[in-house]
C-alpha cells in the first residue's frame, strides 16, 4: 500500500468530511427538533449558491457582499419554507408523512424553477474586477509538502465548517435556546406550558439550519459551480451523516459526517472515485444493520 496515497486520501477525507459534518449538523438540528425529513433543505443550499452567483454577475456586487447576499437568501428561503410550508401543517397536527410530502414537492419544484429562471447550465461564481472584466473571485493556490497537496479553499472549508459546527454545538448544549430545543423535543406539551413558543424555536432552528446549508452551498459553489440540482445529493449526505452518527446527538451527526467523509475518501485506495456513492450507501446500510441507533447514538430505540 502506498502510504503517500493513504495520507493524501486522508487529507481529502478530512476536507470533504468537514463539509459532511456541517451538513449533518444542519439536518440534525431540524430532524431532532421537528422530526421532519427535511428534504427541502436542498433549497437553501442551492439558493445560497445562486444568490451569490447572480448578485455578483448582475448587481456587480463585490465578492464579500455577494457571499453575504447568498447567505441572506438561503436563510430567508429556509424560514419561508418553515412558515408557509411546515408550520401550518404542524399546527393542524398533520402526520410526518404529509410534512415529508410537502418537503418532497418543494424539492421537486425548486430545481426546475431555477432551471427556468437561470437556465440548465452550470454557473461558476465570477465577479467583476476593478477593470470591469469578469474573473474568478478567489485565488486558489495549491500548497504542497512532499507528495501531499491541499488547496487554500480546502483549508478555508475545514476551518469554516468546524468553527460553525462548534458554535452550533455550543448554542444547543450550553444556552437557553438549546434548552428550549431539548424541552420542545422531549415534551412539546410541557414546553409550551412553561412558556416556550414552539414557533419561535422552530424559526430559529430552521434559520440556523438554513444558514449552515447556505454556507455549505457557498463552499460548493466557490470550489465548483452552482447548478440547479446541486442541493439534493448534499442533502442526502447530510441525512446519512445524521442517521449514521446517531439521531440522538448533534455531536454524533458531526462526527458521523467526518467519518463518512474519511471512509468514502479512503475507499479510493481500492476503488475509483466513481464508486463513492456506492460506498456511502454500503456504509450506511451496514451501520444501520449492526447498530440501528447509529455510530455514536445511545441505544434508546
Amino acid at each position, binding site marked *: 500500500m502506498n502510504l503517500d496515497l493513504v495520507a493524501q486520501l486522508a487529507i481529502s477525507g478530512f476536507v470533504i468530511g468537514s463539509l459532511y459534518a456541517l451538513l449533518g449538523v444542519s439536518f440534525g438540528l431540524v430532524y431532532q427538533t421537528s*422530526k421532519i*425529513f427535511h428534504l427541502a433543505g436542498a433549497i437553501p443550499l442551492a439558493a445560497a449558491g445562486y444568490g451569490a452567483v447572480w448578485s455578483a454577475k448582475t448587481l456587480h456586487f463585490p465578492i464579500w457582499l455577494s457571499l453575504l447576499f447568498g447567505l441572506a437568501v438561503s436563510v430567508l428561503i429556509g424560514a419561508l419554507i418553515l412558515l408557509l*410550508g411546515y408550520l*401550518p*401543517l404542524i399546527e393542524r397536527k*398533520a*402526520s*410526518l*408523512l*404529509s410534512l*415529508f*410530502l*410537502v418537503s*418532497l*414537492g*418543494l*424539492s*421537486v*419544484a*425548486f*430545481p*426546475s*424553477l431555477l*432551471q*427556468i429562471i437561470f437556465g*440548465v447550465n452550470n454557473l461558476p461564481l465570477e465577479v467583476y474586477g476593478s477593470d470591469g472584466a469578469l474573473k474568478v473571485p478567489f485565488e486558489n493556490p495549491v500548497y504542497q509538502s512532499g507528495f501531499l497537496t491541499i488547496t487554500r479553499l480546502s483549508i478555508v472549508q475545514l476551518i469554516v465548517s468546524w468553527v460553525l459546527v462548534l458554535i452550533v454545538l455550543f448554542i444547543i448544549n450550553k444556552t437557553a435556546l438549546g434548552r428550549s430545543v431539548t424541552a420542545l423535543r422531549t415534551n412539546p406539551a410541557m414546553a409550551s406550558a412553561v412558556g416556550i413558543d414552539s414557533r419561535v424555536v422552530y424559526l430559529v432552528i430552521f434559520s440556523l439550519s438554513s444558514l449552515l446549508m447556505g454556507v455549505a452551498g457557498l463552499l460548493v459553489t466557490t470550489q465548483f459551480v452552482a447548478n440547479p440540482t446541486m442541493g*439534493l*445529493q448534499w442533502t*442526502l449526505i447530510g*441525512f*446519512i451523516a445524521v*442517521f449514521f452518527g446517531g439521531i440522538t446527538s448533534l455531536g454524533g451527526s458531526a462526527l458521523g459526517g467526518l467519518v463518512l467523509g474519511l471512509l468514502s475518501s479512503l475507499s479510493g485506495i481500492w476503488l475509483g472515485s*466513481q*464508486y463513492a*456513492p*456506492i460506498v*456511502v*450507501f*454500503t456504509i*450506511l*446500510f451496514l451501520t*444501520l*444493520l449492526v447498530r*440501528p441507533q447509529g455510530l455514536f447514538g445511545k441505544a434508546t*430505540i
Partner: protein
Amino acid sequence: MVLITLGVSLNLLLGLVGRVSMAQSILFGVGAFTAARLALPTRTPDMADNVSGIGYGLNQPWYIAIAGAVVVTFIAALIISIPAVRIIRGEYLILLTLAFQLGGQQTMVVAKSVTGGAYGVAGIPSIKIGNIDFSGYTDRGTLNIAIFMAIVTLFVIVIAQGIANSPFGRILKTIREQASVVSSIGKSPVAPEMLTFGITAAIAGGIGAVFALSQGAIIPGNFNLDLSILIVSVVVLGGTGNVLGTIFGAIILGTLEPILRAVLGDSGIIWRSVIYGSALILMTFIRPNGFLPEGVKFKPFSKSKNEIVALTQSEAIKRLARTKGLTQSTSEEVLELKVLKKSFGGLTAVNGASFSIPRGKITALIGPNGAGKTTIFNMVTGTYKADSGQVFLRGKEITGLSEIEIAKSGIARSFQDVRLCEKMTALDNVAVAVPDQLGEKLLNLVIKPRASRLREKEVRERAFECLAVLGVSDKADQLVSDLSYGDQKLVAIARLLATDCEVLLLDEPTSGVDPSNVEGVIEGVMKLREIGCTVCLIEHSVYFIEKLADRAVFLDQGVVLAEGSVENLMSNKELSDLYFGG
C-alpha cells in the same frame, strides 16, 4: 400505463402501511436489466468483444426473464428493508430507499458488465406469444404491448385489492395507524411490512422487465430519481389507499408531459416538475387524502356485507367462556409482581412494587397521578424493561420477554387513548387481534385459499362475538371514526378479548367517556369477569371501582401502600386523604 402499474404497486406500501419508498424507479431498473440479461442471446465466438450497446445474456424466453426480474427485485427489496423495519420508523425506509436509489443509479453506470455503462444495452428480444408481434418498433407491436400491459395492470390491481381486503391487509392498516397496538396483541409488525415492501418492489421489477422487453434498449438514465418522485406524486395526488385514485393520478400526470411538450416545446419537460411539485404541496394542504380518498369506492369494489347472524349477548358470553376453558372459582394468583423498579433519568417511577393478581377477579390499581400505575402496566407487558424485579405469569417468569412474546403467553392491554384504526370498521379492528389467522400469512392466501377463507369466516365470527359480549355488535360494520368515544372504548376492550389472553390490563377504561356511556363500559368490564378473564385496571373513578372491583392495590410514588378489598381501602382515612388530596 407503466405509471399506473408502478403507482398501484407503491400504493400498496404507501396506502396500506403508510411507508414511502423512494426507490421504485431504481427497482424498476433492476428488473429491466435483470430481464435484459436473461433474455439477450448467449455470446457466440464471432461476436466482437465490446460492440457498443449490444449485449449478450442467457438466452432465456421472455417469461423466464420476467419471473427472474420479479425474484431479483423482491430479494433486493427485502435486503434493503432489513435495517429499516427493525427500527419500525418510516424515516429509515425513506433514507435507505433514497440512498439506494442514488447509489443504485451510480452502480448502474459503473457496472458496465451488467448494464453496459451509461449507454445501456440494446437488442433485447421482444416478448413472443405465438407469432403476435410485441416489438416496440412497429405500430402493431406497440398496440399489442399496450394490450399486454393493460392485462398486467389489471392483474396487479386485482392482487392489490386482494391484499388490501385480506387479513394480511388488515394487519398492514393497523401497523399504519396504530403500530404500537400490533405488538401489544401478540403479532409482529416486521414481517408483514417487509413483505409488502418486497411485493411493491417485485411488481416494479416485473414491470421493468416488460418495459425492457418491449423497448428493446434501455439505459441507466431511464431509472432516475425523478421517476421515483413522479411515482410517489401519482399515488399521493390520486389518494393513498385508493386504487382508482392512483389510476386517475397516473393518467393525469402521465398525459401532462406530452401536453406540456406540445404547448411549450422542449422546455415543457421542466415545467412538469414544477407543476407536480406544487400539486404535491397543494394537495397536502387542501385535500390531504388525495382526489379519491381511501374508503371512496365504486360499487364493484365494495365489500360484501357481513353474513354473520346476530346473536344475543348472553349467547356470546357462553360461547366465549367455553372456548376460554376456564373455571371461575379458582383463586390462584395468576400474575405476580416482585419488587419491580423503574426510573427514568433521575425520576423513580416505580420503586419496588410487589403485588399479585388473583384469577378471575377484577383488580384495580389506584393512586394519585404519577404513582407509577401505567409504568407498571408497561413493565408487565414488556413495553418498558424493568430496572430490576420480576414478573410471573402462572408461576412462570416472563420478565424480559418481548412485548409480542408476553402477549402470546396471555397478557393483553388497552391504552389510555383507544388506539383504534379510525378508517376501519369496528369488526375489522377486533378481528385483527384474533390469534392464529391463516390469512395473515400471505403465502397461505395463495397456497391454501380455501382454508384461509374458512378461517377468516371463523375469525370474523369470533370478532363479532367479542363485540356482542360488550354489547356493541350492532355497530360492527360502522367505521370507528363514526362511533361515540364510549363505544370506541368498548371496541378497544373487545379487541383485547379477541386476543384470547387470560389477563387483560385496562388502562383507564372510563377516562374521557361521557357519563351516559360510563355504565356501558362498567357492564362490559363485568362481562369480562363473567367470561373468566382476569382483569387488572387503572382507574380514577371511585364510583367505578366500588361498583366493579373485587380488590384494589393502592400505589403512591412507586410503592404499594395497601392492598385488599375495595371497602377496606376506601374506609382507610389516610389513604382517602392521600387520594383526594385531603
